[in-house]
């Protein structure tokens, strides 16, 4: 038995062309979910196969790839995907946001503003923003076609009626270019404003669900809300305890079994870059106390 020889970036050229056609269509109709013949990849469905196929289709030999998961370059799945492209495409990789031409991400938008020379590829588990309101694809496609988004507003209103707040904290739905309601993938809603008017091309790949969609550069993207309950991005009110950043999204890390915890940047490149520039913890960070003791 001889070992198979794989094409550049794993996928054969025919498949890449098929995916590129889907990407072009997605760019032409911002926020619209384009069905594509997703292939079986050598990583499991739900682990970024959509993002991997999009990346594989747009990657060229001179690209520099960055892969993040939860904002970090060093989480297991980010490492695994980065290694996959090192092995199959032999492209250069980086952890520095500014040096990357293609950034594949799961669950975060980098803190550093992106440029026109960059493409951000999101891994998407469930591309359909209406899915949890209507489980049938036949129905949701019709609702999109007719811009019938009342159900989504009712859901958000019911949240307010029940909790006093919109209870969606991640994968917060947006409307793209005043037309399609779109799932921004499970990024925290803190990241939602960065999708709007972004200089970089944003591509979304859902492998298991076989959908690709896009936000072209400099496109209007609005998080759904109400006049009297405007959209509010959430971030924990603290500074990063490693680099002192007061504007980044924070991970909460439990430091012992007595309820102590600390908050650090979820974007590890942002945090490291700041520390490299000499930023450090702000004066004597108070340990955060558990909520009700």
């Amino acid at each position, binding site marked *: *038995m001889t070992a*198979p020889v794989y*094409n550049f970036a794993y996928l*054969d050229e*025919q*498949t890449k062309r098929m995916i590129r056609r889907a990407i072009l269509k997605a760019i032409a109709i911002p926020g619209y979910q384009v*069905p594509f*013949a997703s*292939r*079986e*990849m*050598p990583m*499991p*469905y*739900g*682990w970024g*196969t959509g993002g991997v196929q999009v990346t594989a289709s747009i990657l060229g030999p001179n690209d520099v790839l960055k892969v993040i*998961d*939860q*904002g*970090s370059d*060093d*989480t*297991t*799945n*980010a*490492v695994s995907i980065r*290694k996959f492209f090192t092995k199959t495409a032999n492209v250069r990789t980086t952890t520095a946001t500014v040096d990357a031409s293609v950034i594949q991400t799961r*669950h*975060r938008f980098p803190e550093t503003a992106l440029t026109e020379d960059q493409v951000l590829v999101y891994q998407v*588990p469930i591309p359909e923003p209406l899915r949890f309101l209507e489980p049938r*694809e*036949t129905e949701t496609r019709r609702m999109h076609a007719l811009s019938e988004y009342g159900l989504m507003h009712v859901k958000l209103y019911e949240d307010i*009626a*029940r*909790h*006093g*707040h919109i209870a969606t*904290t*991640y*994968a917060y739905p947006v409307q793209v270019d005043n037309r399609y309601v779109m799932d921004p993938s*499970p*990024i*925290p809603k*803190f990241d939602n404003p960065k999708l709007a008017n972004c200089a970089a091309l944003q591509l979304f790949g859902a492998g*298991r669900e*076989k959908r690709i969609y896009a936000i072209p550069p400099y496109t209007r993207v609005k998080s759904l809300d109400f006049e009297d309950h405007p959209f509010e991005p*959430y971030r*924990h009110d603290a500074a990063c305890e*490693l680099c002192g950043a007061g504007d980044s*999204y924070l*991970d*909460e*890390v439990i*430091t012992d079994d007595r309820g102590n915890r600390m908050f*650090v940047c*979820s974007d590890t490149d942002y945090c*490291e870059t700041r520390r490299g520039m000499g930023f450090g913890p702000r004066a004597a960070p108070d340990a955060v106390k558990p*909520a*009700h003791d």
Partner: protein
Amino acid sequence: MYVAVKGGERAIENAHALLADARRGDRNVPELTLDQIDNQLALGVDRVMCEGSLYDRELAALAIKQARGDMIEAIFLLRAYRTTLPRFGASEPIETGDMDIRRRISATFKDLPGGQVLGPTFDYTHRLLDHGLAEEADVPTPVTAPADAGAFRSVADLLADSGLIERAQPGNGEVGDLTREPLSFPAGRDLRLQNLARGDEGFLLALAYSTQRGFGRNHPFAGEIRYGEVEVEFFAEDAGFAVPLGGVAVTECQMVNQFTGSATEAPRFTRGYGLSFGQTERKSMAMALVDRALRAEELGEETGAPAQDAEFVLSHSDNVQATGFVEHLKLPHYVDFQSELGLLRKLQAEFYARDPQSDTSLQDAAE
């Protein structure tokens, strides 16, 4: 003191080394060969080829070895490999009527042309652990007879001769391929059958069982189940004729189901069809029952049972998709969890700040 975690790459390499070690197990035990798996775990190989959608016993055996016997993992390995293969086209329809029969039974006729051929089956064994198998033992050569060429017309065809069962609807020659085009609804029967043939045996088994227990009952009889080798031919454009590619072993199940009829049509039995690679009878029978259940709407029957819901069945039958998405919950979700924690703390703070005598604060918020 927490420092930003580093070393994911090395940890992963170490985990892979541990996996390779665990796969090999005790080095004093001889290593499994692919021939051993192919020969002695043949039904496992059959299942992996069937749900992996790739007919190659050696690769399937390799996948089973690499997957440490985890069948869904092995199916996944084969599917991922299949992605890298070029697709030349679709073969000519196989003719199961010309099958080299190794087993063929009918539950609807006591005897029929060709007869009942039991073949290698667990069906009539007593499920008593055979401790003799714990040791190597000589196995006597079984008695066989040469195949009775041409005498094995299908039961469904025999019924069709006398107009008692619906004619198989002729296709238009074009068959869909859901590995090349995303599935959309409503899905034609070709795509439904392809989906079921690749679908998880356990899932189809449970759905088929549910129809028998009344959730979409369709009164089935196992008209015929046959297993054996058929020849596969491919129409070569250049040559202008069909060339044989080789043989594959398949199991075919033709279910005969309760009649339908209308003011203009005489009542007839209807069909449910199952076809799977290798000797995979449970799969093929389950497939035939679910195929028939999915025809409920076409046949004007009452619908509403899970097995009759094409979007439900076809969207959840693929075990590679299912296992990926279920198991992806193992991946980090720190970021989203943090968002939820933030909201939950806010809601709790509001709850505890509320005057216990008054119940209005949340009401107010809603208005």
